[in-house]
């Protein structure tokens, strides 16, 4: 990756072109991001065939509204 590339571009590239080992802080960060997506995304948004409801994100959005 070009050193001149900006930080966000480098972060995205490193997330896409994954070369980190398990049990590194980068791995932990990726795991947290995945779990956040799996658990926080409302099943209705994904048209989940087996689950329904708005989930935590939907609940928070309804609190704001």
């Amino acid at each position, binding site marked *: 990756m070009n050193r001149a590339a900006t930080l966000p571009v480098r972060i995205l590239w490193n997330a*896409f072109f*994954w070369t980190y080992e398990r049990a*590194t802080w980068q791995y932990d960060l990726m795991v947290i991001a*995945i779990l956040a*997506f*799996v658990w926080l995304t409302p*099943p209705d948004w994904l048209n989940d*065939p*087996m*689950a329904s409801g708005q989930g935590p994100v939907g609940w928070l959005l309804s609190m704001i509204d």
Partner: protein
Amino acid sequence: MTLTGLIGRICMFPLQLIISTCVALKIHPNILTFVGLLINVAAACALGAGRFILAGFIMGVANIFDFIDGKVAHELNAVSVFGGFWDSVIDRFSDIALFVGLIYLYSRLGRTDYVMITALAMMFAIMTSYTRARAESLITKCKVGFMERPERIVLFLIGAFTNRMAAVMWVIGVLSVFTVADRIIYTYRELRAVPDKVVA
């Protein structure tokens, strides 16, 4: 120590007990591998029936077998080239069985969209293994990309126990595409570094 490293260490305690038991009983590691497949097929049936919690428990047991076979082989001094090959092949069958269970469920529910998403996730999960196997016949090592088998297994367990299998299929699908792409790019770069090497 990282969070995932700590979880790994905690999980090793009961597993070590099971490994010691298998070693004491001198159970051949190839048998353990095959038993793991049979249990995964049972998990696939539970997934197909839409019984995710039950499937989660069965997958948990199956994956204990998947995990311990290599360790038992080491402790019994039964490590063999065929054992490694057998393990890889059976792992692919186990992977496919779980995806087929979900495809059956979604097709029974008339959800063509998730049949396609799961089928694509299965295709790229298999390609993840294939690209690495093929790459490592050309270059020394091709261990890049995030979504490998242990990650898939943990995601299947999370999806089953928390009823979030749809989100899990999206994650496995998208990250498997990236992993396959990573391995193709990595292999291309490595082979470009040795231009004189001609491979049939």
